């Protein structure tokens, strides 16, 4: 009973907040800021309060009638964990917005959509109904579209929002297909029921579902070959980027695969497919991060790349490793994005070539950003280190060696681009464009939002014990085994793979350090850099698809001749077609 009230509150609080922010209206921005922070923080508190009620039983069931099934909520460890991430990180992003969005127009629209977004993400991870999983999935797509194109006057923002919407919607069809097939064979939209009775489905159908879900997850988490939308989503206000990258949107894909892994891992070649997607994404995105000069884009590529690591862990059966890395990533990536937001807010540009020397002017931001960067690289003893080692270890034990080697190389690249970014923003000699320009100090709300994230980056790995026990006890069949802090330290430090990974990371740092001496190598890799800057041709494919569709529409317009004679030809032609079909037509 308490659990169902808490679940409803996690969903209802952000949405109620959205309604209130909207009703208050744009004439009272102070109220809007306050309401948004209050309601998102309250939702975060409720999500934490839900932790003791974790179970693998459905807690709430509302009948929706035939063909829609029941709206059910299942507060298991995975769901509560992701709801907590969405609400807590989300509320910090909201808090950060108080400074970042101060004085912006249309705050009501901004905060309403953010709160709906957070609520929908909670619904997505807590529901146990395919229909509502899909509904919440689509609502997050809708919100991300509206927020990415928040600055509607900027055509790039509009294009970025549309791209995110269309790509994730196309991927969503995979989820739709799977949900419909599950219903057709089990007669129910209940996910828990499906996981129990998946043997009812013929192997081929299960494979269609498994690959459909992989497509949906890849599109949502910006994995190969759908990775192109996430960098373009950088046109959004920066707190939104943090929200999408750390708290909500992209986690949904990882969630989907982790949730259905216990059934899909038996599908032949499915795990290999996930692994190929993961490795290709992690490497490609890392290379693109190396050659990009836009601060937010570097971070976006690093998100794509790190999500690849999570996919990789899942493909190797490391459900816990993937979720543990998700937790670390959510914290340090939110830290990095919000830190980057503070930097961008201060200097008014996203181009790293026009930054430099900001370390002295923004010491607090530099310190926390550096912390996040070290965690992203995976240096001891920050949260990113532990989780990345678990991911790589899971891959080494249960996956082929080639994949492991490539992922190790990716870790080296991560070190390289991360330190390139930190150097360009904070330590490089100040760009000439910047001389004499005033740097705004970071606001207090910004600092208040960043501090807990920095603390989390330092310490969140200590939660490994309760977190793994939570997943083990409520997720039967997903191969999660509880592990304590001591166990984690032993496991990581006794594994030779750890030292190998650290060596590769060190090599990446060394490469950055001695980049001048490696000039020849850099020149040799120049063509690769060019290709990477063109996003390996995927933008071209997108562009062609859009153009071809638009052309088809344009050509089809000729059929609307506007001449009544031709219109009547259409009627007669239609009649002939109908009669032909009825005479010879099959069914």
């Amino acid at each position, binding site marked *: 009973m308490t659990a169902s009230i808490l679940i409803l509150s996690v969903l209802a609080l952000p949405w109620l907040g959205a309604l209130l922010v909207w009703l208050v209206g744009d004439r009272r921005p102070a109220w809007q800021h306050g309401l948004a922070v209050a309601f998102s923080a309250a939702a975060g508190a409720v999500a934490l309060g839900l932790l003791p009620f974790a179970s693998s039983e459905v807690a709430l069931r509302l009948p929706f009638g*035939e063909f829609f099934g029941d709206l059910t909520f299942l507060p298991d460890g995975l769901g509560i964990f992701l709801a907590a991430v969405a609400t807590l990180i989300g509320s910090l992003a909201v808090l950060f917005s108080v400074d970042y969005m101060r004085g912006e127009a249309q705050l009501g629209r901004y905060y309403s959509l953010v709160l709906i977004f957070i609520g929908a993400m909670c619904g997505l991870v807590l529901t146990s109904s395919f229909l509502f999983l899909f509904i919440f999935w689509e609502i997050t797509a809708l919100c991300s579209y509206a927020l990415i194109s928040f600055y*509607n006057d900027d055509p790039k923002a509009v294009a970025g929002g549309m791209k995110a919407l269309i790509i994730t*919607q*196309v991927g969503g*069809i995979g989820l739709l*297909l799977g949900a419909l097939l599950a219903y057709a064979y089990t007669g129910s939209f209940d996910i828990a029921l499906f996981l129990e009775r998946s043997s009812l489905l013929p192997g081929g159908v299960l494979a269609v579902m498994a690959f459909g879900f992989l497509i949906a997850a890849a599109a949502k988490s910006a994995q190969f070959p759908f990775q192109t939308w996430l960098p373009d989503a950088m046109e959004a206000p920066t707190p939104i980027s943090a929200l999408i990258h750390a708290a909500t949107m992209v986690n949904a894909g990882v969630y989907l695969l982790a949730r259905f892994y216990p059934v899909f891992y038996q599908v032949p070649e499915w795990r290999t497919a996930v692994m190929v997607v993961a490795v290709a994404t992690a490497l490609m995105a890392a290379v693109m991060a190396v050659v990009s000069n836009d601060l937010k884009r570097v971070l976006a590529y690093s998100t794509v790349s790190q999500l690849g690591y999570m996919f990789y862990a899942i493909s190797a059966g490391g459900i816990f490793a993937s979720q543990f890395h998700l937790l670390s990533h959510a914290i340090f990536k939110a830290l990095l994005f919000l830190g980057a937001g503070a930097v961008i807010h201060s200097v008014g540009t996203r181009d790293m070539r026009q930054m430099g020397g900001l370390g002295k002017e923004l010491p607090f931001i530099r310190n926390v950003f550096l912390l996040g960067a070290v965690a992203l690289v995976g240096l001891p003893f920050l949260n990113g280190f532990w989780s990345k080692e678990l991911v790589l270890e899971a891959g080494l034990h249960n996956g082929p060696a080639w994949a492991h080697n490539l992922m190790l190389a990716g870790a080296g690249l991560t070190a390289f681009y991360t330190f390139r970014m930190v150097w360009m923003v904070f330590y490089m000699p100040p760009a000439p464009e910047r001389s004499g320009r005033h740097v705004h100090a970071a606001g207090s709300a910004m600092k208040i939002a960043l501090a807990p994230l920095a603390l989390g980056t330092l310490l969140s790995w200590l939660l490994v014990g309760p977190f793994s026990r939570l997943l083990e006890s409520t997720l039967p069949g997903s191969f999660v085994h509880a592990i304590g802090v001591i166990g984690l330290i032993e496991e990581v430090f006794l594994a030779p793979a750890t030292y190998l990974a650290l060596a590769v990371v060190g090599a990446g740092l060394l490469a950055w350090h001695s980049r001048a001496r490696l000039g020849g190598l850099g020149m040799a890799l120049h063509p690769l850099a060019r290709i990477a800057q063109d996003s390996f041709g995927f933008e071209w494919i997108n562009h062609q698809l859009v153009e071809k569709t638009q052309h088809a*529409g344009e050509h089809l317009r000729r059929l609307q001749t506007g001449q009544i004679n031709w219109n*009547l030809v*259409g009627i007669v032609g*239609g009649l002939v077609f109908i009669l032909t079909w009825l005479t010879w037509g099959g069914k």
Partner: protein
Amino acid sequence: MAHPSVFTLLIAIPVLASPLIYLLGRIGKISIRPQNPLAELEPLQNPRLRAFLNSTPRWTALLALLASWGPFVLAVDLFRSQGPQTFFIENIPLRLDGISLLLAAVSLGLGTLVVLFSGPYMAKEPGEEKYYAMLTAMVGVMIALGCAGDLFNLWVWFEAMAVSSYLLVVFYREQPASLEAGIKYVVQSAAGSVLVLLGIALVLAETGTMNLNEIAAAVGPSPLLVAAGGLFIAGFGVKAALVPLHTWLPDAHSQAPSGISAMLSGVVIEAGLIAMLRALSSLTGENGAGVPAATWGGLLLAFGAVNMLVGNLMALRQTQIKRMLAYSSLSHIGYMVFGLGAALTAGQLAGAQGGMFHLLNHGLMKGLAFLAAGALLYAVSGMALKAASAAADERQADDHGPLTVSDLNGAAQRYPLEALALSLAVLGLAGLPPLAGFMSKWQIFVAGMNAGVQQDSPILGLLVIFAALNSVLSLGYYAPLVNAMYRKQPSEAVVQGGAIPLQMSVPLALLALGVVALGVWPNLVGWLVAPAGSALLAAFGG
């Protein structure tokens, strides 16, 4: 109240009110005309009385439609307690089942809101009384069409609907574009009618009767009846805008006054679809002795797929909002036909209900979209300013230029309610949750996939994916419209636009509420949709 009179009133009130509205409107107008010697009389100088006389047609129409809700509620009550009813006016059979109830609800509901909306919108038009007379008649005729129990009367009501809507399409009769749209509409409707008549003739020759029940009792699996069914699909398909019989639609829907666009897109083409289903269902015969329902199922699925694609691609490049919405109606007819096709092919109740649910939702969403676009057109095209200005009686012919997407840049700043309503409508049409369109599309997809699994046909599964891809494609033209309205930099037209009166905003708010409510809680209209779906399956021997 004895039940036959309930039904009779449901049809009779709007149909008989129509000439009354015209008459009262004429009397009112003539009595205050300056040329009229009576206008010199003292009472007629009173501005309030003059305003009242001027607005008689509006209020009479609104009253007539509001009065029709009485018999409608009684009919629903009777239907729910005693099931489908057959009754006679003289010896013309009429029947009230789930389908007729649904059509009555949609046409009466949307009609009432359109009359309310049209008050300010049409206030300065000289032919106002004709407008309301025809609109009210059209509502009554469509209710009757849904109840028709024999082929001949089905055809008569169908024609009556065409005539009344024809006069409304050419309402701006001094504009060449309206006249062109009207000519195309009337010629193509007539062509469709001829095909329907031929079909009726074949059925009459084969069975010797036109009563739908008697036909159902008399039919066998005759090729002549298959041909008749083909003629019905083509003939009614012109009105239901099946591609390639649809070419009249974009012109007619975009040239009509916005309220009429809402009615045409939201109810009239769907009424054509229901007429088609009624005619076809009789050919199935009792216990499936006639032409099997699956004969039509495949054809409907094919038309569904073609309609979706053509409608979306044609809308993709449109910059005129009303024309874009008109093309999107093609794709939505496609979804309905697709769901109904799945119902007829594999007896999927989900498809029958989904198709009917989508019919209702499309009425709400497309009605809302056209009315919201109309309200914005009213605000930015100068109609609003004219309404406020003193020289209100003078009207220029170029009022009704097309409303383009760029005209609405930044519309949300001045017209937040209208912009939100239009956004909800188009996002609902694109099938995004939690809006009404998603729920009915979902039901249709469930039907398609179930039918595919049941018949072991991957083609049906692929068609479902195709339909879903089409929903994504439709975002390609809906989403930019939403983005444009929420720009910060308003267009010239928006800056100079006038106010939108409350009377126009209320119907928008109600419809928008409906679109959200049905998206969150689809069972809200389960009492209307479920019987309609069951009635359809039952009629086709399912």
